[in-house]
């Protein structure tokens, strides 16, 4: 697993290319090509090339970061500043609102716009965006759809009957039923679990995304 001279040179040139990223493409190419040529010339002049020889050649050329700094100065190129800490704006708020209840207002489309905004925003990382998209497609709109069309308007679980508020998808007006309807039905219990999950999951996801939104800028400045 020793480093061969070729590997050293390859690694050096790759490093240099990355460091020169701020330069216009043609200048970067020219400099990298010329330095690669320099290394070839220097190696050709060696009688018995050793790893130490190659290391000396690369050290003579200097740290790629130094060369890049010099090049930026020569070409009066500003190094790209690290992105400023992100301040959540209307786009993030709209994304959160639409993800949660967009599907209720405008079935599917409202939620879908929320997803687009979510992915356009720089405030979340990819993992957050995937979570926001997958849990739960449609947001509360899906919950509502399932509750209304799959479950019937009143959900019976255990000894409780709830009505579903069609505008929010939440269960309201829950009333305890007398024990005439026993709560041992496994299917009912499962159904209840699924309903709770699809109502709770979008709420939890939204809360999580909002939390990430508040955390991120302060984490970036810390």
């Amino acid at each position, binding site marked *: 697993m020793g480093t061969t001279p070729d590997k050293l040179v390859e690694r050096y040139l790759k490093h240099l290319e990355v460091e020169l990223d701020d330069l216009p493409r043609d*200048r970067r190419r020219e400099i990298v090509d*010329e330095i690669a040529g320099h290394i*070839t010339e220097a190696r050709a002049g060696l009688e018995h090339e050793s790893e130490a020889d190659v290391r000396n050649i690369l050290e003579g050329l200097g740290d790629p970061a130094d*060369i890049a700094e010099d*090049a930026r100065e*020569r070409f009066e190129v500003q190094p790209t500043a690290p992105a400023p800490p992100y301040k959540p704006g209307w786009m993030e708020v709209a994304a959160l609102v639409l993800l949660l209840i967009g599907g209720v207002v405008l079935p599917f489309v409202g939620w879908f716009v929320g997803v687009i905004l979510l992915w356009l925003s720089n405030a979340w990382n990819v993992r957050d965006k995937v979570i926001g998209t997958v849990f739960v497609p449609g947001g509360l709109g899906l919950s509502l759809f399932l509750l209304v069309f799959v479950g019937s308007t009143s959900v019976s679980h255990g000894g409780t009957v709830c009505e579903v508020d069609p505008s929010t998808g939440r269960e309201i007006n829950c009333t305890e039923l007398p024990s005439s309807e026993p709560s041992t039905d496994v299917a009912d219990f499962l159904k209840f679990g699924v309903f709770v999950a699809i109502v709770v999951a979008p709420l939890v996801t939204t809360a999580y995304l909002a939390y990430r939104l508040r955390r991120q800028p302060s984490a970036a400045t810390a």
Partner: protein
Amino acid sequence: MVAGKQDALLAQMRKGTLQYCVLALLADEERYGFDLVRSLAETDGMVTSEGTIYPLLSRLRRDGLVDTTWRESSSGPPRRYYRLTKAGRAALDAFKGEWGRFRDAVDHFVERKAG
């Protein structure tokens, strides 16, 4: 802290004058990059990172002070040869005059106090 400032100043002076040293090396003959670097490195203290010559050469080319031509090499891949343009020669001559005056002026004070 004073030493640090002095180092930075010397580095700036080296950087500022390096391009004229390169132009001067090209005054009589065309040269390829590695050859130029070798000549500069022979004089101690002129170049700390040899790699920095290449951004400089690229800049000189874009400023029209040098021209380049590719030539076949007997010992490997073709080489890019640099040679002075008219504008490059004019820049070098102008610098020579200014530099002479500047060097004499600095010497006048520094050498008198030291000696």
